[in-house]
């Protein structure tokens, strides 16, 4: 939840709990000297647009932040008059105290004179405590998100810088191997092929890192919209069909009878299913079968990628979606692999409000199930 929503919710609840006319939340600045109106309930829309309030000049806030709930029965009767929002007569103000000290104040107002008593203070205090916890948590979450976005942005630009020299080295090596720099001995061809293989792997690793970082930096994510699921899945199956044939694995797609529309980006969906079907083909020996099926289950869309390949050891299953993790038997079948494909697929599925589950029996096969919410669940 965004901070504004949290605060608005807090003001609304405070007003309702005390059956008051209005309520407001003030937040303290980092120095603890000034407060600013951050959310209100029952007050005019232009409320809170005033400049920040100095704590020591505001009776209600000063008292509350000193740990004493402050009550004003008739603001106009006080000399000098206590300033309340326009049209308000009585007020109760309690502090919002987080784990590291006060974060602000919570005010409740009435239009006609009312003498707030201890019972009402006791009603408001637990709400203020909860509110302070929510404010602290929302701020921390926001800080974490900002940190994750800048980390992802850094990885993204760093990987782009990495791709260029690798691509140039690959271009040079490919030319040399094809004899464009002069004739080569068999031994030289062999050595250059090894170098090429390493460079190709580096290229895949960098590409996967870019994908992973791009998924985590929300502003870099391609546009999302309604997509017909079976078109994306069939496209991926079609693209991987030649490789399946070459490997001697039967790759089939079993579409759902009804049209399933999900909210996602085309590139993202392609990435998810390419990674899963590519894995299934990679770890299914010749003569095996990979089946992709679509269905609607309890108002959600499901895509299953099922293979009768080598399977995954049970002790590897909890780690499967971790960055750079590769199951030991996967390493023996395919020496090259980044261990990032499933992490990317899982991140993307989460981004679209879905999930990926896996079931596997060693030596018998694996089924990955991608569940995605339907764009129009009622239809």
């Amino acid at each position, binding site marked *: 939840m965004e901070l504004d929503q949290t605060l608005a919710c807090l003001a609304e609840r405070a007003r309702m709990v005390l059956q008051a006319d209005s309520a407001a939340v003030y937040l303290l600045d980092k120095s603890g000297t000034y407060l600013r109106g951050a959310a209100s309930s029952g007050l005019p829309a232009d409320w809170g647009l005033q400049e920040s309030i100095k704590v020591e000049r505001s009776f209600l806030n000063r008292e509350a932040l000193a740990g004493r709930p402050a009550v004003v029965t008739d603001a106009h009767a006080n000399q000098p008059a206590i300033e309340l929002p326009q049209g308000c007569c009585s007020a109760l103000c309690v502090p919002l105290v987080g784990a590291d000290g006060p974060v602000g104040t919570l005010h409740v107002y009435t239009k006609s004179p009312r003498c707030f008593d201890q019972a009402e203070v006791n009603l408001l205090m637990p709400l203020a405590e909860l509110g302070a916890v929510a404010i602290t948590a929302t701020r921390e979450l926001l800080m974490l998100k900002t940190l994750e976005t800048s980390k992802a942005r850094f990885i993204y630009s760093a990987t*782009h810088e990495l*791709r*260029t020299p*690798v*691509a*140039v*080295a*690959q*271009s*040079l090596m*490919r*030319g*040399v191997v*094809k004899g*464009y*720099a002069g004739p080569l001995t068999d031994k030289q061809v062999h050595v250059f092929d090894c170098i090429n293989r390493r460079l190709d792997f580096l*290229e895949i690793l960098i590409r996967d890192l870019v994908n992973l970082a791009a998924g985590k930096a929300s502003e870099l994510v*391609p546009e999302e919209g309604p997509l017909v699921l079976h078109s994306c899945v069939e496209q991926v199956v079609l693209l991987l069909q030649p490789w399946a044939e070459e490997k001697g694995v039967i790759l089939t797609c079993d579409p759902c009878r009804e049209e399933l529309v999900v909210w996602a980006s085309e590139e993202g969906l392609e990435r998810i299913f390419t990674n899963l079907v590519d894995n299934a083909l990679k770890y299914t020996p010749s003569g095996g079968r990979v089946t992709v099926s679509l269905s609607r289950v309890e108002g959600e869309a499901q895509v299953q990628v099922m293979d009768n390949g080598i399977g995954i050891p049970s002790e590897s299953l909890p780690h499967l979606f971790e960055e750079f993790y590769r199951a030991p038997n996967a390493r023996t079948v395919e020496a090259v692999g980044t261990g990032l494909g499933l992490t990317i697929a899982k991140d993307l599925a989460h981004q679209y409000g879905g999930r990926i589950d896996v079931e596997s029996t060693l030596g018998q096969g694996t089924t990955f199930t991608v569940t995605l919410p339907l764009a129009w669940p009622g239809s």
Partner: protein
Amino acid sequence: MNPKTILVVDDDPDFVLAVRMVLEGEGYRVEAAANGAEALAKMRASLPDLVLMDVMMASPLDGYHATQEIADDPQLRHVPIVMVSVIENTRYASSFPTDQHLAILDFIAKPIEPETLVAKVKGWLKS
């Protein structure tokens, strides 16, 4: 018959070497420019048959803006251009100027595969 001239515009001399090695090996004449401004000067001095233009180059003038200047110059705009980039994203590629006079033929992604490059250059020169 004179060999066809291909202008390779890239600020990375190693990439120019990779392309030059292959294309000269196939009998083409290869000219090089390290940025968009140098490419325009070379094109004005002598028109190439094809330009391979890197997208992101150090100043003055990156590939994106150099293609725009080529489009604005009636003497140059008919020279076919192939954009080269390490970014293979099609969405990004389609954001390039599509001026009706500008002859952007194609996009190729780095790294280059010699067979693919040679086949494509042959095709581009024919068109």
